[in-house]
């Protein structure tokens, strides 16, 4: 099987940036040559992709996805989730353990790994639970789950309230070669439905203050400093968390951080008339926080853009605001939303690719490369393609997004995993 990607801007940030033809043979990147070069055009190919005006990038990686299988297949299955990922330009995703049953043991991990592999499409790397049943009481069998295929542990959806458990988890996980992802939230302070502030007060909804997040960020920075072990912060949303992470990094503490597109695109005024598509955890914050998130993306304090793709059926969302489920889908909108930051000059295209491929790869221990001889996990991005996003025509089983009907500029036009085309416009 030979695929020729013609005249794309081959962009492996920090390493390669040139307009070239790329030849893929049997799943591997075989050659990269100047456009129209004799060496490539002479060889016969099975598929030719015209990438003129497009970026040929290492495959995008989303390190924060909820796939809902096993247990909540009416919201999303592994199959529908990886289809949505492929359409969004992702060649690899990490799925969070808050399924039913929880991915807190090797059997569940193996189930997810095997099921995902059976579709031979986007790579799925499960994240195991830190604690049994996400209950924050007893450490899960992190080593056994690692053998079965997890790349990280997290109690995502819930914080680890017990500071001793968190300390032991990051120590133990480090010894197993596993990353700990912290869902930073003080549950005592976060008993609310949206961001604390004038909008919540006007709507009569109880508020979740910024401090509910930054308190936990600061605690886990302290634990990382104490133990010397790595901690990764999920879905960072507040300026205080960002300041703490920035200071920690300057001190050499081994922390990394991600944010989600909604935190750099939207604020708490999106809740407006009790729109449950603007309900997530952490909640959409103030404009000051949104600007701080943009700044942190630009200066590198935030390493990763991840979706926190959280599918929910209408049944879970078309209810009273305080009873509605938290979260939105994001796999098919993350890249266009991130590209809007490039268009506004907030970050460069290289930074975008770092944050959506090389950085998450480095943090979890995956590959993100366009080197000759490596597996062809490639995303071809057309940065100029204008389209209207319709949630109804999305690949995800769920439709819970505040971006329905938005006009976007730029998206993935081809996603390739191990030289196999899993999505093409």
């Amino acid at each position, binding site marked *: 099987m030979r695929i020729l990607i013609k005249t794309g801007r081959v962009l492996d940030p920090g390493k390669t940036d040139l307009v070239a033809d790329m030849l893929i043979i049997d799943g591997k990147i075989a050659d990269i040559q100047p456009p129209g070069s004799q060496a490539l055009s002479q060889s016969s190919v099975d598929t030719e992709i015209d990438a003129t005006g497009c970026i040929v990038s290492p495959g995008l990686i989303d390190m924060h996805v909820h796939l809902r299988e096993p247990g909540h297949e009416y919201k999303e299955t592994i199959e529908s989730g990886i289809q949505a990922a492929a359409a969004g330009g992702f060649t690899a995703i990490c799925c969070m353990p808050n399924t039913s049953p929880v991915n807190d043991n090797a059997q569940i991990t193996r189930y997810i790994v095997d099921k995902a592999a059976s579709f031979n499409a986007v790579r799925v790397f499960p994240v195991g639970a830190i604690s049994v049943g996400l209950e924050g009481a007893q450490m899960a069998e992190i080593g056994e789950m690692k053998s079965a295929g997890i790349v990280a542990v997290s109690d995502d959806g819930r914080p680890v309230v017990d500071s001793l458990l968190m300390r032991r988890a990051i120590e133990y996980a480090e010894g197993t070669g596993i990353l700990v992802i912290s869902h930073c939230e003080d549950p005592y302070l976060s*008993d609310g*439905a949206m961001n*604390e*502030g*004038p*909008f*919540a*007060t*006007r*709507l*009569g*909804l*109880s*508020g979740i*203050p910024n401090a509910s997040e930054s308190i936990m960020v600061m605690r886990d920075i302290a634990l990382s400093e104490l133990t010397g072990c790595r901690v990764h912060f999920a879905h960072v949303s507040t300026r205080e968390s960002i300041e703490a992470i920035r200071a920690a990094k300057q001190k050499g503490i081994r922390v990394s951080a991600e944010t989600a597109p909604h935190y750099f695109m939207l604020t708490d005024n999106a809740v407006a*008339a*009790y729109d449950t598509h603007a309900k997530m955890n952490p909640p959409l914050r103030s404009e000051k926080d949104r600007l701080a998130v943009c700044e942190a993306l630009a200066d590198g304090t935030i390493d990763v853009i991840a979706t926190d793709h959280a599918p929910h059926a209408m*049944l879970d969302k*078309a*209810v*009273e*605001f*305080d*009873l509605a489920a938290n979260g939105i889908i994001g796999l098919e909108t993350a890249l266009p939303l991130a590209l809007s930051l490039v268009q506004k000059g907030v970050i460069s295209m290289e930074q975008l690719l770092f944050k959506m491929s090389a950085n998450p790869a480095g943090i979890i221990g995956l590959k993100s490369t366009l080197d000759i001889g490596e597996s062809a996990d490639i995303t071809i991005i057309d940065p100029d393609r204008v389209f209207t996003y319709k949630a109804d025509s999305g690949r995800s089983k769920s439709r819970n997004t505040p971006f329905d009907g938005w006009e976007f500029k730029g998206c993935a036009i081809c996603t390739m995993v191990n030289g196999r085309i899993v999505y093409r416009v």
Partner: protein
Amino acid sequence: MTWTKKDILDIESLSRDEITMLLETASGLKEISERSIKKVPTLRGKTIVLFFMEPSTRTRISFDIAAKRLSADSISISASTSSIVKGETLIDTARNIEAMRPDILVIRHSSAGAPHLIAKHLSVSVVNAGDGMHAHPTQALLDMLSVREVKKEISGLNVAIVGDIAHSRVARSNIIGFSRMGAHVTIAGPPTMIPAGIEALGTTVAASVDAAIENADVIMMLRIQKERQKRFLMPSEREYAVRYGLNKSRLACIRPDALIMHPGPINRGVEIAPEAADGPNSIILEQVTNGVALRMAVFYLLAGGVRNADSD
């Protein structure tokens, strides 16, 4: 001016003219309740459903009496008799009620925004009878009606609202309503009960209860809602009564013509002393009387009653 709104969901969505129209209509209808035969045929053949997902006797009775005085058929559905307890969603329950063709659906619900959710999905007129901590528009309107009766003009008055502002839909609706009508609204209470950014609704936060009430034309005391209290808002009712209640010593410092109000039910000796609740400045019972007239006006305008019909 003619009434054009389908629903009354909150004070925020009512213009100054609409509020005035509601108050004037209520003033006109009030006399019906003074007659020996307290009933006019205005809304004969109209059906009003009182859908109370949160327990409330007083407000429900007030709506019920208002409907009956206009000859509408009213029926009450409470949380325990509705299908919500059987797992039906709010929208489904509301759609089922609508399928029986009521003209007006009055809803009280513990979730902020629940009436808005229903109004979005249904074509029947929706009246919010209190949603979570968000809004209680008919209470604010009857409060404005009560003040206007005595003071003639709302514009220019100093209104003090004291107590648990954070958890009070009455406070939110009154802040917005009175400030929209031109009054200066000041709030006071323990800092734990003052929500973030409340100034944006059109009020200033006083440094103390004394500062809020000393020059007030209207003093509105809020009920300390024990049932909705979250933890740690105050040390004790005893301390609250001393530091934030309208007690005897504070009563001595208010303006002689100040009106004392309370949305009820009152906790005697906690947020309000008996001397204040029962004294000459109190219009607390007048508020209750006006509640019926105001709710009659709401039904009258929403059901498109003919103005002549009520003067039989």
